[in-house]
């Protein structure tokens, strides 16, 4: 009799291998998701009431001209220095807030010529119509970063965890409310309220 042909390869475990690969890819692939900087616009205010007077020292002005140069507090500044300048301004705590409380968590220089309290400190940003969108986003990013860094610091100090992880946990449990966590987040947001106003560019 002729030599026996090689036995057929058992394909029974092939499915297992396929599933193993499938699970591997499922676990390792990250789905591309849109990300961005979330901001709220101010509602349109038609009332004729006079805006409250804000002391010059509580106002941190950032101007961007049409050549994408920055003018911060009447001095020209590079983009990389903006974040620290904004932190110094917000964290200064040189005076009292509207309720007459001192800022006991600020670690700034307590310079009386800079902002009184994070409650009162307002960052005002104005750009030219010809400013590039890229530069505009860079500046927004630096200013939001200043707030995030300060909030992060307070979260570490008070609750010994990062603010980011608190927000992530809130997001994850959005269907069952965790009052304690929400309260902690609110506390930190209140310590450094995001008062970032944008003036409309001049029409020319």
């Amino acid at each position, binding site marked *: *009799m*002729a*030599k*026996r*042909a*090689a*036995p*057929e*390869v058992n*394909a029974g475990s*092939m*499915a297992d*291998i*396929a*599933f193993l*690969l*499938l699970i591997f*890819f*499922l676990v390792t*692939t990250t*789905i*591309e*998701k*849109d*990300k*961005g*900087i*979330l*901001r*709220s*616009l*101010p*509602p*349109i205010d038609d009332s004729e009431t006079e805006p409250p007077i804000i002391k010059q020292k509580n106002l941190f002005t950032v101007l*961007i001209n049409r050549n994408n140069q920055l003018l911060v507090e009447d001095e020209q500044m590079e983009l990389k220095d903006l974040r620290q300048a904004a932190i110094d301004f917000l964290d200064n705590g040189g005076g009292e807030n509207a309720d007459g409380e001192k800022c006991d968590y600020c670690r700034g220089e307590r310079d009386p010529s800079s902002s009184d309290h994070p409650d009162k400190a307002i960052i005002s940003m104005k*750009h*030219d*119509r*010809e*400013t*590039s*969108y*890229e*530069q*505009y*986003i*860079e500046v*927004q*990013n630096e200013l*939001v*970063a200043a707030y*995030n860094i300060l909030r992060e610091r307070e979260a570490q100090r008070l609750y010994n965890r990062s603010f980011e992880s608190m927000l992530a946990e809130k*997001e994850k449990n959005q269907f069952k409310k965790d009052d304690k966590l929400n309260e902690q987040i609110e506390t930190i947001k209140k310590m450094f309220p995001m008062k970032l106003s*944008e003036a*409309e*560019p001049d029409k020319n």
Partner: protein
Amino acid sequence: MSKFKNKKQGDLPAISTASLPDIVFMLLFFFMVATVMRDSSLMIENILPSADQVEKLKKDRTTFIYAGKPSSQYKQFGEEPRIQINDQFVGIEDIMPAVLQAQSELNEELQSKIVVGLKVDKETHAGLISDIKQELRKANTLKVMYITNARAEQ
């Protein structure tokens, strides 16, 4: 005993194709998971700026507005940055109705939480953005997200 008596001896048996469906399904699942559907084709150049203080976008409550220079096949629309919503170029006065319509198409409980995602080319001038923002304020859709590429924090 062998079924293939007429074949030459020593031939290898055919490779089983029983697992082929599994492999195909695996690939199918992989692409199903990894693919993001794009619902409108872009008529503009759209290179997003990058930022590091980014948050995730919630897709279920977002409507998009695109802006940028018309791309090379749409040169007849000129060189100036234009606004695109869904599949067409729109003027600044069309933003409010478009956004309000998108809002009315959302789930009822999400309508008040609508976020407008701005996908704007980084070469655009910021004046156009403030025009868009002014229209959004009129439409009372106050949450905007400047969509950017995430970059690692320095």
